[in-house]
């Protein structure tokens, strides 16, 4: 309403102007709720996003953060409990159709929630939530049949079922096209053989969005995404992997031995799984960038607070120019990352393909968060090397960002591909 008003004020036509001005002013006075403080929010957000974030923040402060240390020690957080809590409050299906329990809001609201999750005091839990909301379910929501959406999407949105994404394998991480898991046809069913690796939520998941080879043909057109219930006979959760960081998030290696599922569990068109997965990656990559913003800011702020108090050679560490200048430089980089991420969100919300920008965001977020955690850790000194302060956990957790969800090198390859600079495949 505000922008229309501005445009109209500049319009030469007086008659139309008068008519519209009155109705717009009426609209404005009715919606003064939203109009008055719009100036205070960042470029993709408004007061409704803030209200959403405040509500989520309360939940995080009360129901999640008090338990994070315990869950990190146990190397597992209770996914069913946490997801149910989030689902009950509407946070797991923000952009999803109302028919399946979602809120059908635009992507900027999803971005707000993703960013707010950064207030959780570890990297593992936001990552696990991201799998549920932005990695295992986008293709299902866009292309799945009504039956599949009722069976798998709706309970994932309500938080009753935990989801995981099964793409990576022991032999295939970055090279998704080379996965070996096969789903052969047997009448109206598929028989799945193979295995998956690095599966977040893998030991607790009720179902997996599984990428498998279903057809003959070239590697990009012979795969399908399949909704696979984890309690199907033949599915073995073989191992819980002990990792350098992200301790509260359980990561599994999974084997499939003659696992039988109906063919109706294929999401969308058979053979299109690879393309669907690529589409899912856009959201996954923007997610990575958005979820890095708050942790980076927190690391910098906490380092400022620590170095203000801690004295060496008679003065606070922060008084040394290299320290406060470095933190300023990192803050500058943070704002650049934020701008790129918000721009990706805005363009994606408009309906544009943001593969290049999203990949850039993912690349830069991994790089920056590692630089911030490393430099901040240095300024924390010996204290930073202990489990008693957050920076050590942050250092461990956020090292993953450059590896998981698409390694830095993959991001660079994608950007080169879009720049048409890869050798051999240069098109005219």
């Amino acid at each position, binding site marked *: 309403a505000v922008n229309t008003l501005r445009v109209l004020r500049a319009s030469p036509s007086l008659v139309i102007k008068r008519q519209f001005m009155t109705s717009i002013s009426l609209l404005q006075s009715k919606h003064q709720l939203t109009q008055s*403080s719009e100036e205070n929010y960042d470029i993709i957000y408004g007061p409704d996003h803030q209200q959403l974030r*405040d*509500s989520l923040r309360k939940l995080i402060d009360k129901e999640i953060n008090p338990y994070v240390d315990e869950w990190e020690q146990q190397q597992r957080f209770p996914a069913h409990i946490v997801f149910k809590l989030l689902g009950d409050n509407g946070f797991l299906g923000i952009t999803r159709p109302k028919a399946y329990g979602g809120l059908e809001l635009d992507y900027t609201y999803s971005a707000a929630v993703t960013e707010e999750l950064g207030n959780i005091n570890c990297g593992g839990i936001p990552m696990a939530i991201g799998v549920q909301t932005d990695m295992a379910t986008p293709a299902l929501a866009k292309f799945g049949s009504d039956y599949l959406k009722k069976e798998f999407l709706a309970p994932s949105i309500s938080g009753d079922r935990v989801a995981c994404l099964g793409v990576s394998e022991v032999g295939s991480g970055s090279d998704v096209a080379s996965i070996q898991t096969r789903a052969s046809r047997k009448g109206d069913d598929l028989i799945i053989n193979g295995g998956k690796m690095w599966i977040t939520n893998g030991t607790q998941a009720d179902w997996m969005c599984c990428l498998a080879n279903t057809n003959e043909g070239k590697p990009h057109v012979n795969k399908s995404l399949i909704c696979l219930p984890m309690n199907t006979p033949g599915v073995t959760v073989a191992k819980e992997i002990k990792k350098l960081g992200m301790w509260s998030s359980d990561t599994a290696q999974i084997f499939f031995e003659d696992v039988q599922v109906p063919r109706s569990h294929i999401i969308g068109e058979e053979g299109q799984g690879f393309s669907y997965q690529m589409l899912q990656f856009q959201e996954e990559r923007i997610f990575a960038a958005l979820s890095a913003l708050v942790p980076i800011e927190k690391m910098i702020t906490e380092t400022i607070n620590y170095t203000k108090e801690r004295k060496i050679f008679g003065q606070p560490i922060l008084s040394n120019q290299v320290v406060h200048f470095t933190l300023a430089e990192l803050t500058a980089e943070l704002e650049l990352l934020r701008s790129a991420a918000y721009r990706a969100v805005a363009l994606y919300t408009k309906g544009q393909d943001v593969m290049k920008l999203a990949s850039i965001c993912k690349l830069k977020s991994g790089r920056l968060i590692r630089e911030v955690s490393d430099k901040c850790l240095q300024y924390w000194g010996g204290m930073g090397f202990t489990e008693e302060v957050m920076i050590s956990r942050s250092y461990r957790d956020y090292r993953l960002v450059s590896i998981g969800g698409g390694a830095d090198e993959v991001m660079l390859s994608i950007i080169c591909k879009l720049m048409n600079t890869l050798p051999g495949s240069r098109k005219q």
Partner: protein
Amino acid sequence: MSGLRILVGCKRVIDYAVKIRVKPDKTGVVTDGVKHSMNPFDEIAVEEAVRMKEKKIVSEIVAVSCGPTQCQEVLRTALAMGADRAIHVEVDAATYENLQPLHVAKIIAKIAQEEKVDIVVTGKQAIDDDANQTGQMVAALLNWPQATFASKIEKTDGELKVEREIDGGLETIKVKLPAVFTSDLRLNEPRYATLPNIMKAKKKPLVKKTPTDFGVDVTARQTILKVEEPAVRQAGSKLASAEELVTKLREAGLIPS
């Protein structure tokens, strides 16, 4: 006795988790850019009203807040928690600095009469001024019974049975309606405003009024002379004996020599 109407007072205060800083000119505390939220005791009051509505004791909940435009955020939270309507009594920022519980109580009392409510509820006190006056004053202005520091409320025919937290322990009283009550910490645990309810709340009515609409004069009745931090606690010192203590006290002139 169904169909009771309830008016809930909600105040926008600096969030409880924020570290308060005094302004350099000592006229007050820093509020610009500082996180604000609904007074926690008012949240408990809203929650109690919503629970009473869910139990069908109450049929309509009206939330009210007095202050500058940002108070609407607090009203939106109340609507998202389950209030049906909201009234924002707009007071400009300058006047708000000197707004006193008596002003607010007069406004709430007037609204209670106009809206013909059966129950007025507020938090027992606000965490910024700790006044603990508004609820009591509303009751006095309306000549209604009051049940303050409520930790449990039950409906019995035509009355409310209220358990109050008092210095000596718990006191249970019966209160005839219409009445005012103020909520204490253990009355309930407020729900989170779920996303679907936040979205639904946008369609609920929120009207803007001014104190003059209710015939209340909000001219300042007092001026704040200065606001400063509590004195930094001085270091003590360990003494060897009672005799030494007495000597030190005499030296400091704290006891007659």
